[in-house]
């Protein structure tokens, strides 16, 4: 079989690009105490670091949607979006917590400010969080062990559906790429920091 498997991925920017995002998994120190300097192959230990990182993104989505619904300013389809996605992302949180077990990260505290009171800002925040989560999962896929990959494939597809839905509500193209880009841990953390949604411990 002469699939272009070894050393020739640079021929296709498509393949190179997504894998490149997975390389930085252990570099960013996203979880307390992870001071490792190079991405090792998939392992149980690495699974936990990655899943805690993804868990944090799901926590943020649930908190935004719950906040938006309880603030009472969302109407029509936007409110339906918040209710449905809040419910589904909560199931993602439960699922990830169940996989990680004792080592699951606790929910951080969030401060969304106007993003839960102003429909336009809520829409922008939801779009950022769903897009970021979706790209983060793609970036980490190659770093997880196979059994965990099956678990997250069904989650990232739903987050991508959420991203498409909120883009449609915002009047934007729900599927802007033929192949969705991946984001590194560092890029994800930078995006999250820019939103100022996560309170510093």
């Amino acid at each position, binding site marked *: 079989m002469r699939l272009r498997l070894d050393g020739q991925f640079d021929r*296709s920017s498509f393949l190179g690009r997504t894998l490149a995002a997975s390389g930085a998994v252990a570099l960013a120190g996203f979880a307390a105490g992870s001071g490792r300097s190079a991405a090792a192959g998939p392992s149980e230990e690495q699974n936990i670091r990655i899943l805690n990182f993804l868990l944090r993104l799901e926590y943020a989505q649930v908190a935004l949607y719950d906040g938006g619904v309880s603030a009472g300013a969302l109407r029509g389809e936007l409110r339906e979006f918040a209710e449905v996605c809040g419910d589904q992302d909560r199931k993602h949180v439960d699922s990830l917590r169940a996989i990680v077990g004792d080592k699951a990260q606790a929910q951080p505290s969030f401060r969304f400010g106007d993003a839960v009171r102003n429909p336009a800002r809520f829409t922008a925040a939801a779009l950022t969080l769903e897009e970021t989560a979706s790209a983060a999962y793609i970036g980490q896929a190659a770093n997880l062990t196979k059994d965990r990959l099956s678990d997250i494939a069904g989650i990232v597809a739903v987050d991508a559906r959420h991203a*498409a839905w909120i883009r449609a509500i915002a009047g934007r193209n729900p599927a802007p790429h033929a192949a969705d880009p991946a984001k590194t841990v560092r890029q994800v953390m930078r995006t999250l920091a820019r939103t100022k949604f996560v309170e510093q411990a």
Partner: protein
Amino acid sequence: MSSKPEIADALTIAEIDRDGALLEAVANLYGSSRADFLRGAAFASAAVALGLALPSEASASPKQDVGILQFDLAFEYLQSTFYTQAVRDRTVARMKPEKQRWAHVLGTHELAHVAILKDVLGKNATKKPFFNFHGVTESEEAFTKTAVAMEDLTVALLAGQAPRFSNPALTSAVFSLLTTEARHAAWARRLSGARPVAAAFDEPKTLKQVSRVVQSTRFIAARPQTGRRGKPRYTG
């Protein structure tokens, strides 16, 4: 929690296949009788020979990677031809602007997926089969419903296969196709009046399950077909 009644009308493979009700659903969708469907099932071996050959479900290996990608390629051929045919039939031109944009974006993406998979497979790329959509691309309603079902099915296909590659580069690459197909499915569902996301988790399907659904549609043909209106069709 609001709950929209039209969700019941939305045809998703996950919903219809759960208790083996796929037969009825396909019959309803295509207006054919149950007997027709069962005749369609007899085409199974032809369809398999024509590009939906099933690679083994054994453990990951470079050889299996090729088999999965070939299956994905056959599926992308099906999707891209489906949208192209709806454009040729002028079904797309008759739709409202937002739906036209949707059909064109999806058609373009599926063509890009074909190009990507052919590039990755190199000389192992399979040829494009012939297709016959049995008039489904000629009516907006049938076209839209089938698109919804097909996009949801692609999500299930890729959710099932993305974790199985031996090569990590393929894993991440196919994850980025999975999320794109999930967006297509959400968009299609919204335009058809259904909730864009039916459940908290997209359930994976095995190659065998996907193959069975594709065969039930009889979209993959043994040779170029003549359309039901008698005009020649060159969908292959």
